[in-house]
C-alpha cells in the first residue's frame, strides 16, 4: 500500500477508537470489492491472522463462483462492485434529534405493532439520549449471564476474547464454499452474535439481539455462531417487528448453530426488513444461509420464523441430523404482499439413526407477490428409522399473486417414514361471511382467519414474539383485501 493511504488509514483507526465520525472516514472507503478491501475490513477489526486468511480464502473462491439463478425470484442483477463493504458508523449529525423529527408514517407503524415507547426512539435512529435507557437495561442482563457462564457478545468481541472457540467452530456448519452468498459473507462479514453455553447450563433467559451492546446497524453481512455444549439449552431471538430500513440493499447473513450431545437450541426470528413501497421500488434483498448441526446424540435444533419483510427473501434454515435420535424442527410463516418475492423453505438431512424432523410451513401471498416453498428432506442410507412429517399450506389472497411448492424428497433408506402434505386455498367466502355476521369487519375477519391459519407456527414462538408476530401479520396484510 502507498505511504499516503497508510497514513490515512492510521488516522482513520485513531478516529474510530475515539468513537466519533468525521467526514474523512466516509470518503476513504469507496465502493468495490477486492483483496485489499477484505484485508482492510479485517485490519479495522483487529482480527488475528487466522481469520484474515480465512476471509481471503473465501474471497478468492467467491471470484470463481456464479450467482445462482434457480430460485423462483426475479430481480435486477446486483453490481457487487458498487457496494461499500465497510459500513462506517452512522454520521450522528444527520440523525433525528427526537421522535418529532421522525417520519409520522413510521411512528404510526410502531403504534400498530405495539412497540413500547422507549424502544421507538432507538429504532428510529434518534441520537444518543434515548439510547441510554436500553444500555442500562442491557447491563443487568450481562451480569446474569456471566454468573451462569454463558458467553453472549458480538462476533467481533468473541474474536478478540475467545478466538479459540471461534476458530474451532467457525465454518464447520456452513462451509465457506457452500453457496455464492455464504462465500461472499465469509469474506466480508461485518459483525453478528456469538453465543457459547457451557455444559449442562440452561441459559437463564432468552437471548435477544436487541440487548446486545453495539448492536449498530450491521445487518448487511451478519455472521452469527451459537454453540450449545453438552446438555445445555438456549433460546435465541433475532430481529424485531419494526420495519427496518437500511441504505444497504443487499443482506447476506450466515448463521451457524452447533448442538452437542443432549443440547437444545431454539432460534426464533421475526423479520420485517423494508419490503419496498406499494409499487415494488426499493426494498431489501435478504439472502440468508442458516444451518444447524445436531452433532451430538439426542440433540435438538428448532427454527421458528415469521418473515414479512424484504423485497426478495431467499433463505432455507436447515438441520443436519447427525447425532443419533437428534431432532430438527422448522416452523415458518412467510408473508408476501404487494411486489414481494419469497423463495424460502428448509432442508432436513437425516444422517444418524432414529432422527426426526418436523416441518410446518405457512405461506401467505397477497397483492402481486410470489411466495415459494422449497424444501428438501434427504434420508441417507445410514439414517435407519428416520421420520419426517411436512405440512406445507399456502393461503392466497386475491388473484394476482402466486403460491408455489417445490418439495424435494430423497430417500435412500428403507425404514424411513416420510410424509409430505401440502394444500393451497383462499380465505373462503363462507368463513368471511360467518365472521361478519357476528359483527366483525371484513378486515378484522381476514386478520382473525389468517392468524388462525398461522396458529400452529405462532405457538412455537417465545411469548413476547408471538404477540408481536400477530400484530405484524395484520400490518403486513393491510390493503390486501377489498
Amino acid at each position, binding site marked *: 500500500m502507498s505511504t499516503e493511504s497508510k497514513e490515512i488509514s492510521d488516522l482513520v483507526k485513531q478516529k474510530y477508537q475515539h468513537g466519533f465520525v468525521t467526514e474523512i472516514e466516509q470518503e476513504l472507503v469507496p465502493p468495490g470489492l477486492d483483496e485489499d478491501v477484505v484485508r482492510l475490513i479485517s485490519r479495522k477489526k483487529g482480527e488475528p491472522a487466522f481469520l484474515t486468511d480465512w476471509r481471503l480464502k473465501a474471497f478468492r473462491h467467491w471470484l470463481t463462483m456464479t450467482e445462482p439463478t*434457480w430460485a423462483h425470484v426475479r430481480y435486477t442483477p446486483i453490481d457487487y462492485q458498487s457496494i461499500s463493504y465497510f459500513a462506517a458508523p452512522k454520521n450522528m449529525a444527520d440523525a433525528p434529534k427526537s421522535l418529532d423529527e421522525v417520519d409520522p408514517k413510521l411512528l404510526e407503524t410502531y403504534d400498530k405493532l405495539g412497540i413500547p415507547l422507549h424502544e421507538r426512539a432507538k429504532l428510529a435512529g434518534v441520537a444518543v439520549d434515548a439510547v441510554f435507557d436500553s444500555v442500562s437495561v442491557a447491563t443487568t442482563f450481562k451480569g446474569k449471564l456471566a454468573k451462569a457462564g454463558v458467553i453472549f457478545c458480538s462476533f467481533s468481541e468473541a474474536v478478540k476474547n475467545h478466538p479459540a472457540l471461534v476458530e474451532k467452530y467457525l465454518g464447520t456448519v456452513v462451509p465457506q464454499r457452500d453457496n455464492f452468498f455464504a462465500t461472499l459473507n465469509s469474506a466480508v462479514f461485518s459483525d453478528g452474535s456469538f453465543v457459547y453455553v457451557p455444559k449442562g447450563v440452561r441459559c437463564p433467559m432468552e437471548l435477544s439481539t436487541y440487548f446486545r451492546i453495539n448492536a449498530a446497524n450491521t445487518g448487511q453481512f451478519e455472521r452469527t455462531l451459537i454453540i450449545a455444549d453438552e446438555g445445555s439449552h438456549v433460546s435465541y431471538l433475532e430481529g424485531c417487528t419494526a420495519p427496518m430500513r437500511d441504505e444497504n440493499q443487499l443482506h447476506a447473513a450466515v448463521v451457524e448453530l452447533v448442538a452437542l450431545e443432549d443440547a437444545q437450541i431454539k432460534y426464533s426470528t421475526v423479520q420485517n426488513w423494508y419490503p419496498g413501497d406499494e409499487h415494488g421500488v426499493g426494498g431489501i434483498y435478504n439472502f440468508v444461509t442458516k444451518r444447524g448441526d445436531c452433532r451430538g446424540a439426542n440433540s435438538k435444533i428448532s427454527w421458528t420464523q415469521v418473515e414479512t419483510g424484504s423485497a426478495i427473501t431467499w433463505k432455507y434454515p436447515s438441520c443436519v441430523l447427525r447425532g443419533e435420535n437428534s431432532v430438527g424442527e422448522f416452523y415458518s410463516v412467510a408473508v408476501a404482499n404487494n411486489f414481494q418475492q419469497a423463495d424460502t423453505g428448509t432442508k432436513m438431512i437425516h444422517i444418524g439413526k432414529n432422527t426426526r424432523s418436523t416441518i410446518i410451513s405457512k405461506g401467505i401471498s397477497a397483492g402481486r407477490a410470489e411466495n415459494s416453498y422449497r424444501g428438501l428432506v434427504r*434420508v441417507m*442410507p445410514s439414517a435407519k428409522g428416520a421420520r419426517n412429517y411436512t405440512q406445507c399450506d*399456502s393461503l*392466497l*389472497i*386475491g*388473484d*394476482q*399473486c*402466486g*403460491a*408455489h*411448492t*417445490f*418439495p*424435494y*424428497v*430423497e*430417500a*435412500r*433408506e*428403507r*425404514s*424411513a*417414514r*416420510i*410424509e*409430505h*402434505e*401440502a*394444500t*393451497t*386455498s*383462499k380465505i373462503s367466502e363462507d368463513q368471511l361471511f360467518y365472521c361478519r355476521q357476528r359483527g366483525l369487519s371484513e378486515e378484522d375477519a381476514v386478520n382473525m382467519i389468517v392468524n388462525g391459519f398461522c396458529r400452529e407456527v405462532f405457538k412455537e414462538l417465545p411469548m413476547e414474539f408471538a404477540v408481536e408476530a400477530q400484530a405484524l401479520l395484520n400490518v403486513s396484510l393491510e390493503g390486501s383485501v377489498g
Partner: protein
Amino acid sequence: MTLERLHEAYASALSGLEVSDTSRPLRDAAMDSFGKLGYPSRRREDWRYTDLKPISAGNFDPTPAIPNSDHIKHAHQLLDESLLDPNVSPMIFVDGQPEPGTHPPELSGLTVLGPEQTWEQIGNLQRKELYERHPLAALNTAFASSETLIRVSEGSKIDQPLHLVFITVESGKVTQPRILIDMPQDSSLTVVQHFIGEDTAAGWTNLVTQITQDERSNLTLYRVQEHGRAQFHTELLESKLARDAHIKLGYVDLGGSLIRNDVQIDLAEPGAVCELFGVFLTSHGQHVDNHTRIDHSAPQTTSREAFRGIIGERGRGVFNGKVVVHRGAEGTDAEQSSDNLLLSERGEIDTKPELEIYTDAVKCAHGATVGELDPDQLFYMRSRGIDEGTAKGLLTFAFANDVLRRIELPEVRKRVASSVAGELPDYDSWGGLL
C-alpha cells in the same frame, strides 16, 4: 451416441427411408433444434436425478430397422407369451416398424393413417417451445419412423380398445415411433400401448405421442412397459384438451433399464379433466423417472394424479409432478399424490410433487409419502395366522393394486396385476392366493 454420430446418421438414415416430402423440412428443423440443444444434462432442473450418459455414450444405430422374417417370427413368439388381451388383435410394430402385410383393425368410426397424413398433423403441432423443453422430442421428429395417425370420426364412441404393441427383437437399435391421436368433438376411444422385448436386446426406444382433443372428447390410454431388462426408454406424451374434454392415462413401468417418461397435459378450456395414474417397480439397477406436468390454463378444470412406486433392491425411482395453475384459472381442483415403498436397503426414491399457483379461487392439494409397509396392517394379518412373508407380499401387492384397479379393461387389468405380483419378492409363496 454423440451429436456428431447423430448428424451423420441423420443424413444417411433418411436416404435409406422412403421419406415423404412433407416431412423433410420438418425433420430438418427438428434436427437443427436438437443440434443446438443437445441431450438434456443433469444441470437442467428437470433432469437433475436422471443421467442420460448411458444413452448419449452408448453405441446405437438410429437407422430405422427393416425386420426380416426371423425377426418377425421371434417377435410373435414374444407376443404370444405376453399378450395383454387374447380377444384383441393388436397393431404390431417390430423394432419400430409396422409388421409388413398387416393392417390396422377395422373399427367403425376409426381411421388409422400412415406417414403422409401424420406429417401434416405433425406440422400443425410442431413448435419450438416443445423442443426446448423436450429435446428428445426433436430427435424423434428428425428420425421418426412408423408415423401413425389414429383418427376417430366426430361423434364416434368406439367401444373396442385399440392395442399397439412395440416389440424389440434386434439389439443395438434406436427406434423412434411417432404416434398421433386425433379426437374430434364428442369422440371416445381407448388405446393401449404395450412395450415388450428380449432381455438381451439392448437398444433405445424414444417415443413421442401427441394427442389433440376437441370438445367433450374422451380418451383413455394405458401404457404398459415391459421392455427387456437392457432396454432404454424415453418418451413424451402431450395432449391439449378443449372444453369438457377428458383424458385418462395409466402408466405401468415394469421392465427396461433406464426409463424416463414425460407427460404434458394442457387443460386449455373450461371443464377439461385429466386423470393420470401410474405404478412403477424398479430394482436391480433399474432407474424409472416419471416427470409430469399438468397446466390448468382455464377456469373450472380438474386434475387427479396418483403415482405409486415400489423400489426394490438397488432400484431407483424418481417422480416429479408439476401442477401449474395459471392466472385466471379459478375453480381449479387439483389433487396429486406420490406414494412410495422402499423394499430394500439399497433402493432410492427421489420425489418432488410441485405446485405453482397464480390465482386464489382454487382447491389444490398434494402429498408424498415414503415408507415401509404399515406395521399395524402387517401385525393384523399375522394375528390372523398369515406368515410374515405372505403378509408382506400381499400388502405390497395391495399397495400397487389400489391404483391398478383404475384400469377399466378387465383382461388388461388382470394381466398387469399378475405381472406386477410376479415381480414382487417371495411371489412364489403368496402368489397363489391372488
